[in-house]
């Protein structure tokens, strides 16, 4: 049944997809947090222009794509740094200018070249062993650097000026981030194309952004808040009256499939004074002081949970699509 997995080209494709998806998701976290979302689109189309020029001149596509991608990312970064132009404006200009160049280069070609369009839409089944090695090498470098300098990249994403003022070489890290983004996009071009790479950068990070409220929660260990344990004695001493500020999230009325939007969840986390629950005989302690308890969202395990899930799904659809919703509710009942 799984014989097709023994095919070499399919193995390479699957590995390339996994590597590209992983590295784009990892760097996408910093891209989204730093507010550089559209740089993915700008750089990808600039790299495509580089590929088109390479085919026009008969040169190797990768160096041209790297030159165009890096050049565009750095120019956008410099313009933002000098404050002369807003980021979205400079990205918009570079995006359209490089795409126009790409179309010009393609138009200047004397024959139709299908390979060029492969870089626009991706051709994952034609990934070669060398390209796979290049993707794996870049993934290792990008993930390694992001892990090593997670602390600095997060400070940069939160407040670049404060990071610089606090003794972090934020400017260098900003350009390092731009360089890594450009390289990731260029190497992913052949696999997923200039359009899909933008989605791979944004969607995983944007999803995580909706579900987390802590740097530690958004991706794997990012260097902050490693030790969340606190001395329980200190907590007791801090409030001998037996009351404390708690951030425990109370069950909220269902207002959607995921229990409400992020804004509502943040409101629910506002502190409420509740009595401290002492440890019981079995040694079960009250939830840790000040710790945000998340509502666990798991797949339905029982038929009752499945029915409840479907009911909420129908409710959401009814709100989103008033005409289709009632039909679904009738179908469900």
């Amino acid at each position, binding site marked *: 049944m799984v014989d097709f997995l023994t095919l070499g080209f399919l193995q390479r494709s699957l590995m390339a997809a996994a590597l590209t998806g992983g590295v784009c998701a990892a760097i996408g976290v910093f891209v989204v*947090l730093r507010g550089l979302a559209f740089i993915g689109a700008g750089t990808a189309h600039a790299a495509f222009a580089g590929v088109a020029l390479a085919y026009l001149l008969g040169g190797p596509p990768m160096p041209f794509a790297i030159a165009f991608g890096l050049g565009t990312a750095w120019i956008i970064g410099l313009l933002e740094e000098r404050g002369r132009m807003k980021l979205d404006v400079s990205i918009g200009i570079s995006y359209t200018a490089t795409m126009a160049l790409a179309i010009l280069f393609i138009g200047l070609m004397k024959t139709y070249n299908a390979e060029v369009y492969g870089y626009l839409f991706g051709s994952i089944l034609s990934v070669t062993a060398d390209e796979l090695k290049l993707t794996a090498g870049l993934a290792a470098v990008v993930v390694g650097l992001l892990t*090593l*300098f997670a*602390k*600095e990249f*997060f*400070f940069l994403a*939160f407040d670049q*000026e*404060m*990071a*610089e*003022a*606090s*003794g*972090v*070489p934020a400017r260098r890290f900003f350009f390092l981030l731009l360089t890594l983004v450009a390289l990731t996009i260029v190497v992913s071009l052949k696999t997923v194309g200039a359009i899909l790479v933008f989605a791979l950068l944004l969607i995983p990070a944007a999803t*995580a*952004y909706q579900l*987390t*409220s*802590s*740097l*530690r*929660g*958004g991706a794997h260990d990012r*260097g*902050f*808040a*490693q*030790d*969340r344990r*606190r001395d329980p004695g200190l907590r007791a001493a*801090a409030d001998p009256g037996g009351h*404390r*500020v708690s*951030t425990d999230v109370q069950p909220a009325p269902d207002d959607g499939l995921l229990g409400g939007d*992020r*804004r509502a969840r*943040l*409101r629910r*986390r*506002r*502190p409420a004074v509740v009595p401290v629950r002492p440890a019981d005989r079995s040694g079960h302690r009250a939830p840790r*002081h*000040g*710790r*945000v308890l998340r509502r666990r969202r798991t797949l339905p395990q029982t038929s009752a949970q499945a029915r409840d899930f479907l009911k909420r799904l129908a409710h959401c659809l009814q709100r989103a699509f008033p005409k289709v919703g009632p039909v679904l509710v009738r179908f469900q009942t």
Partner: protein
Amino acid sequence: MSHPHPAHTHPHHADHEHGKPLIRFDHASFWYPHGPALEDITLEIADGEFVGVIGPNGSGKTTLLRAILGLMPPTRGSLRIFDCACQNLRCYHRARIGYLPQKRAVDPYFPITAREAVLMGRSGAIGLWKRPGKADLEIVRHALEDVGMEDYEDHPLGALSGGQQQRVFIARALAQHPQILLLDEPTTGIDTTTQHTVLDLIQRLHEELHLTIVLVSHDINLIAPLAERLALLKTRLYALGSAKQVLTKEILAQVYGPQILTTDTGHVIVADHHHN
């Protein structure tokens, strides 16, 4: 709010020397593309000194702090921090300067807790690529206690009120264990009780740890009793000296206009012309 952490935990306390100038403006001018922000500033701030900076809106108070941070080199004249030209400030110099920027909007959905925000203040001290250790987490806890925010350490920063966020950012500046503390309108958006608590804390930090403090505020009456010297700015340095020397009717009238009055108790008030 507890007392600031003991003096011996502060790295700059033991080798404290009084009077050695840490910040030296020498006829320094700072220009933005649209015009001058500060002109011909000559000012020396000694180690352990508490200087209050006052002036009307757009007088260059924030620019003065940004210049001390090395974020804005002078277009004319010179500025030396820790006896190093501000253009050449290195990361280890900057790590010794704590900075509380003017209150600004924080992205309410940025995934960061109060503790993580304070831990960012340790970045310069921890060093590149290194992870925070137990000592750093302890310093962060002390800093949060100093500003009375220890109960909120695991709260998302975006869920805190503006005043609470301001206290978290003060804690971030304190966690840096700075030698120079630059505070830009630290009491903005904070309720009156907390304003006094924060100002008490700043004064204690100055007295017990001998931090060099440059505090910018538009509230003259709040800053005057605290600062050893006041600098009155309006693009140029109009006056520099004790509160008594600077807050005179003549000087204030020149900078703020004739409606500014001083009372016998030394308070500065605005004449209420609406009810005349």
